[in-house]
Structures are given as C-alpha cells and as structure tokens.
C-alpha cells in the first residue's frame, strides 16, 4: 500500500486552473478531462511526491488534492491499461 494523489473533481471543476499538471514532475500523470472540466490522476504514473498538493493548496488555493492509499481508490485510472484517449474521459475517472 502506498499513497497517491487524488483530486476531488467537485472542487477542481469549479475553476479547473490546470496548475497542478504543469508542476507534476511526471509526464502524463495529472491528466485533464476537457468534458468534465477537471484534472485527474493516472495512478500508475504517480510517484507520490505531493508536489501537486502544495501547488493546489498554496498556489491555486483550491485544496482539491489529497494523498490517499491506492487501495482506497474506487475507480483508479491507469494510463498503461487505458491509453491516452481524452475523447473517452468525460468525468468517468473520479
């Protein structure tokens, strides 16, 4: 068990500032769902550094990201399984 970043889409979609994805050190890890207007995390790419949490809390001031145990995720999105298909996302990956 380990911690990964998890984005509260209800909070994020209010502004969807897209800041966290610009500061995550890992490529294609915080993805952006254009239809649902929210960021979400590809958990198989997340290394658990918590940089995004600081960005959302201190820079964006939206407090939408928390670190949670990977086992506690209801429908984790894994990029290696699903591939990169923005047209299919549409809020399906809370």
């Amino acid at each position: 068990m380990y911690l990964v970043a998890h984005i509260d889409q209800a909070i994020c979609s209010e502004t969807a500032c897209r800041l966290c994805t610009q500061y995550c050190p890992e490529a294609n890890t915080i993805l952006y769902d254009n239809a649902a207007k929210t960021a979400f995390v590809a958990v198989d790419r997340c290394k658990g550094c918590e940089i995004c949490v600081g960005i959302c809390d201190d820079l964006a001031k939206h407090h939408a990201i928390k670190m949670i145990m990977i086992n506690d995720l209801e429908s984790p999105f894994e990029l290696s399984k699903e591939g990169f298909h923005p047209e299919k996302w549409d809020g399906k990956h809370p």
Partner: protein
Amino acid sequence: MSFKNISITPGWEKYMTKEYQDLVERGPYGKQKKVSEMGSFKEVLEEHPMCAGCAMTLFIRLTMVGLPNPEHTILIGTAGCGRLALTQTSIPFIYGNYGDTNAVASGLKRGLEIRFKDQAKDVVVMAGDGGLADIGFSGVMHSWFRKERFTTIMLDNEVYGNTGGQESGMTERGALLKMAPKGKMFDKMDMIGLAQTSGVAYIARLTPTNPTRVASVVRKAVLIAREVGPTFIQAYTSCNIEYAIPTPKVMDDARDIESKRYGFMEIISDEAKAYLESIEPAKKVKK
C-alpha cells in the same frame, strides 16, 4: 527524425504499442503545444526511473514541451541522472561519454546541416553540472568558442547526484554533502560569465518555478541555435536526495533559491534578437 518516420505504416497499427499509437495521434508533433495544454496531449516523455519529486524531472518534462520541432530534434546526454528520463522520450537520444557531449553535438550538427539542407535539425545537449562544468568543461567552452549551432542545457542540481553526492564546480561554497563533509571550499563557477566571454548568442539562467517561462526559454534557445550560434541554459534543478529536501517542499525550495540567489536572467545578442523578431514578427520579443 521526422513526423513521416514516426508515423505508422498503414496496416501495421495493431502491432504497435498503445503508447506509440497515442503518441502519433495525440502527440506534440506538427504544431507546438503550450504549457497550458499539458494533460490534454500525449507527452513525448514516458515512464522513467528518476526519483519521486525530482525537480530535474520536471525541468526535463517542461523542456520537451518547449522544443519547437520535437520531430526534428536530437538530444544528447551523458552519465548523470537526467539521461534516465531523456532516454525515455520519443526523441532520438545519443549518449555522449561523460565529458564528450559538446564534441559529439558539434560533429552531429555539422553533419546534419550537410545531410539535410532543406530541413533544419535541432541538436540539444542536456547534461548535469558535473558533466558540463567539470568533466565536459573544455568541450563545452570550445563548442562555444567555435560558435557551434546547438543548445546546451545544464541541469544544475549543484552536486553529482547520480554517484551519491560529490561536490561539483557548480556547488555553492560551504555546501555540505555526503562526499564533501567539510563543506565545499570554493565558489560556484560563473558559467554565465564564461558563456558571455565566449560569445554565446543566448544565455538564460532560471529555476522551474514558472513552467511557461521554462518552455519559452527553451524554445528561444533552440530557435536561436538553429541559425545564429550557441545557446546556453543553466537551470536550477534541485536534487532532493542529496540536499535532503522533503519532496512536498521541492517547489518551495526552488522559489526560495530563485529569490535568494539564482534569479531569472536572459542575455541575448543583437543578432539573435533580430533573428527571433524576423521569424516571429507578430509576437513581441522580450529583450
């Protein structure tokens, strides 16, 4: 080495990995992507073994977005942490022996100019402070004196990160490291001054605190190197392992170091400025 080479031969799609197909269909080719679009296009960087929360990883990621023509770019790296990610991009990568990067890049760029007369090819060296300021120092300086047309990007974590914490010429005076237990006894080398002395056409020093700025600096450096002369970017990319920075604090550290001593600065020659204005007349070019 061109979008044509990257594209999949019709009928062979099903034999290619998902990652590859995604890259061809939704990658940053043809039209340069913006930092604000990150998360919505497939980046050229794949999974890699660099440490969690490494600022160097972030800088490399942003650099890939800044490349004006990734499909016509060749990266050159060497021993050191950065190559762990640089080898996992869909951009051709050449491993120059430690110390050889700028000699390899010189020959490569000259060869490309002969081979591809009608298509500009960009050569970008990305290596550590140890690789460029210490062991590769003479190669770097001579490539600048010879006005070789490629970009040199120093991933300046102020330490030999990959080999466990030796001091480099770019380490700050007094810094305590595992293999510099009494503290470094000499000043940080002034690579910016040396770049100026040797006539580098565009010089920038920055930290990763502003992602859009990183991409824009890389773009300028690569475009200027294409036609005008050597360009140099010195980027503070902290090593959270050797400097014991907790990963959630990595960006705080970058902001702190930026405001205390690293800053953001650009030095651009008149010729380079005129060139940028000639190719991007619509946009106002910053001084």
